[in-house]
């Protein structure tokens, strides 16, 4: 009873032109949101313009989007037949129930409702029921509802209550497009201009257009040589356009002079606007519509008979495709640069390539974590237990578990090490772009970007990152613009489940100069503290440092150094350096005894070097000495100049 949807009739095979764009758009909308967009949707058009195709396309598309939907397609005649059969079998109620349960009812050719009062009443009841249940109805007809003879007023108002759209006769371009697509589907190839000639005939509907194509295909099949434009015209019965016109203006005698004139004009226009011109114009129209410069094609039109028109068009399209690819590539790296005009002008391919290359170069990935801080080089202990396990959780599921992760601890406890280690581990994941840098570097980059007027590029660079790791977040204090930018990046990362890791010397809410919104976001993740290292951790760390310094690791030395009061790994490193340098100066191996002598006894002269400011015998103090610049001689004239001066 219910017809099966013809698999050929889908939106993909429907050629959209100006005449049917509205109907197709409405159809797509209905297929995507059955029952909610336009209900009922009423499509009308003359015969052979694609009503049934569109109706079935809606059915296919709706089914593809929501396979569980119950979709019924049938023509009105089938509906009537089914109804009569049901009544005859005494199954009227079952029939009604069946149709009230469909999710989308597609009824073709409802103009046949004329003079069928009982069917009109039935359909009215059905549409009311379906609409109330929020089910979609799509109807087609060859005329608008109001023009269907003898149609119940209530049905007219119901049908018109949703959306009434019509499908017009395709214009020349659409006809060409339809012919091309159909010819392609049939695997038929024609000489350039043949399909255009066929499209030039104003067929009242697409079915007749298909008939014309069939004739061309058949003619070409029986002849060895490909059909040319003139032959095509003959096959189609339009030896020239005038023959048709003369026939139409059959006011015999008076028509002659005019039709003769028309013939002449047609010939002249045909010469001026040959098929190749139409093709070029078509290309111009198309690419202009897409926003590309078409100067090159327009120049073709200025010539009398340019050679290799189709090649020129193909080359142009090739260039445009390349531009598109470039633009897409650039768009990923730098959205602002993608909008540049150069990507819309095939005359400036070289410039476009250069611009793309520039963006490509400029879009170096953001600073990566330092390789000097591997995770297995990180000494674990009770004091950094929380931080380390959080770091491992972050590495296992970036963006999912703790986002952001804030590592808090005093200077020298290994925050930066852990940060970089997380970064290195994250980098190992596929497609990962890890931005890991100090907050100072971050600020400096932003300033440089503002200076170079490419903040968008800078932003895009970070937005592409899959993880952002910032060291020493407290340095953001007072940098409003950076905080603003970070805030935006922050939100994007959180939305995209991308990992953020920060380090700070203290709890974010105790940091001065940070905006409330940043602080609250930092607190929103996990704040993991790293405490002062205990003896065990100090021992482990020392062992690593000693190995790094290529000092032989004696347990006694290790024990002694681990017992020294040190509140950070950095101060441990300082200890080891002092001892090993002193040992080197005295040309002795590093031992526990030597270390004790150096650290507790009178430190030898060599060790003093490590204490910082004293680089020479002179003490340069900002408080004392010469205070006035005027009293200093800052620039001595060169000796050579003075000698010459004296000789004179």
């Amino acid at each position, binding site marked *: 009873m219910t017809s099966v949807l013809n698999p050929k009739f889908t939106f993909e095979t429907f050629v959209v032109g100006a005449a049917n764009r509205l109907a197709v758009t409405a159809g797509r909308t209905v297929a995507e949101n059955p029952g909610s967009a336009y209900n009922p949707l009423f499509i009308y058009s003359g015969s052979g313009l694609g009503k049934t195709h569109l109706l079935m396309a809606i059915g296919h598309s709706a089914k593809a989007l929501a396979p569980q939907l119950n979709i019924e397609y049938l023509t009105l005649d089938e509906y009537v037949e089914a109804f009569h059969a049901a009544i005859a079998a005494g199954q009227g109620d079952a029939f009604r129930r069946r149709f009230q349960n469909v999710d989308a009812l597609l009824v073709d050719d409802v103009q046949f409702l004329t003079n069928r009062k009982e069917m009109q009443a039935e359909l009215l009841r059905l549409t009311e029921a379906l609409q109330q249940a929020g089910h979609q109805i799509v109807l087609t007809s060859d005329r608008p509802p109001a023009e269907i003879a003898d149609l119940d007023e209530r049905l007219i108002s119901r049908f018109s209550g949703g959306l009434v759209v019509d499908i017009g006769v395709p214009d*020349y371009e659409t006809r060409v497009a339809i012919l091309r697509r159909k010819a392609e589907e049939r695997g038929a190839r024609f000489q350039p201009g043949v399909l*255009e000639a066929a*499209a*030039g005939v*104003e067929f009242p509907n697409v079915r007749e257009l298909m008939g014309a194509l069939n004739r061309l295909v058949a003619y070409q099949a029986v002849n060895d040589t490909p059909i040319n434009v003139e032959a095509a015209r003959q096959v189609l019965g339009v030896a020239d*356009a005038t023959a048709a*016109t003369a026939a*139409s*203006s059959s*006011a015999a005698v*008076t*028509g002659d*002079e*005019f039709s*003769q*004139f*028309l013939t*002449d*004009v*047609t010939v*002249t*226009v*045909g*010469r*001026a*606007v*040959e*098929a190749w011109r*139409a093709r070029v*114009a078509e290309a*111009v*129209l198309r690419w*202009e519509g897409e926003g590309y410069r078409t100067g090159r094609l*327009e120049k073709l*039109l*200025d*010539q*009398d008979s340019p050679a290799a028109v189709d090649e020129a068009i193909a080359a142009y399209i090739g260039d445009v495709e390349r531009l598109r690819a470039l633009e897409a590539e650039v768009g990923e790296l730098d959205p602002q640069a993608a909008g540049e005009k150069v990507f819309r002008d095939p005359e400036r391919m070289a410039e476009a390539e250069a611009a793309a290359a520039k963006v490509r170069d400029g879009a170096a990935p953001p600073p990566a974590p330092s390789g000097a801080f591997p995770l297995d080089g990180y000494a674990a202990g009770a004091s950094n237990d929380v931080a380390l396990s959080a770091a491992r959780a972050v590495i296992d599921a970036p963006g999912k578990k703790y986002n952001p992760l804030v590592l808090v601890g005093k200077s020298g406890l290994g925050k930066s090490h852990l940060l970089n280690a997380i970064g290195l581990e994250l980098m190992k994941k596929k497609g990962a772009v890890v931005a890991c840098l100090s907050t100072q570097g971050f600020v400096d980059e932003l300033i440089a970007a503002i200076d170079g007027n490419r903040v968008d590029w800078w932003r895009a660079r970070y937005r592409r990152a899959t993880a952002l790791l910032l060291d020493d977040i407290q340095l953001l204090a007072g940098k409003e613009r950076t905080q603003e930018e970070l805030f935006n990046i922050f939100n994007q990362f959180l939305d995209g489940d991308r990992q953020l890791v920060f380090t700070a010397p203290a709890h974010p809410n105790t940091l001065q100069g940070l905006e409330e919104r940043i602080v609250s976001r930092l607190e929103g993740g996990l704040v993991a503290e790293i405490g002062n290292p205990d003896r065990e951790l100090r021992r482990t760390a020392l062992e690593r440092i000693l190995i790094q310094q290529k000092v032989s690791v004696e347990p006694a030395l290790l024990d002694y150094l681990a017992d020294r009061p040190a509140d950070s790994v950095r101060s441990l490193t300082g200890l080891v350096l002092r001892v090993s340098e002193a040992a080197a100066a005295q040309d002795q191996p590093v031992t526990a005894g030597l270390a004790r002598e150096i650290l507790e006894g009178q430190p030898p002269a060599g060790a003093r070097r490590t204490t910082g400011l004293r680089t020479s015998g002179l003490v340069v103090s900002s408080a004392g000495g010469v205070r006035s610049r005027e009293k200093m001689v800052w620039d001595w004239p060169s000796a050579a100049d003075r000698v010459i001066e004296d000789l004179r």
Partner: protein
Amino acid sequence: MSLVNFTTREITCKIVYYGPGRSGKTTNLHYVYGRVPESRRGRMVSLATQTDRTLFFDFLPIDLGQISGFATRFQLYTVPGQVYYNATRRLVLQGADGVVFVGDSQARQLDENVESLQNLQSNLLEHGVDVRTVPVVMQYNKQDLPRELILTPAELDDALNFRGVPSFPADALHGQGVFETLKAISELVLKRLAAGSTA
């Protein structure tokens, strides 16, 4: 004025019939009007004085239908021939794609012909158009009058057609030469398509 519009796929030709008063410009249009099938022509607009002289201008749009995928339209205009309507003439001439100069073959009208021709040239110049760049054809009308009253086409060519543009003897009242003239000017105008005068 754009002759060929590739965007809207239209060809529009504005052709102006120019010439001295009573030389038969409106008659030309009337004849064409009578021959064009009703479906193809628009309403002919004619603003005439009580004595049937063209007061403002005549306008006849003709729709030639789709030619090579282009909706082709001709717009035929006439100017009022009388000397004192020069402002109107200039206005009508604006944006003309081609000019048909309808001359009066009567010997005693020769001066009027010359004067009108000069007037055409100066009016075109007012629009910044060189008469040599505009398609122009000549039509020597009223060739049906008695021999002794008129000049032959050859004589008229000598007197008027110093640029050597196509010229046609005509009897607009009976239609002789009307379509030949129209055809010639159309060809000249449309040939400029190929010459690349696209918008």
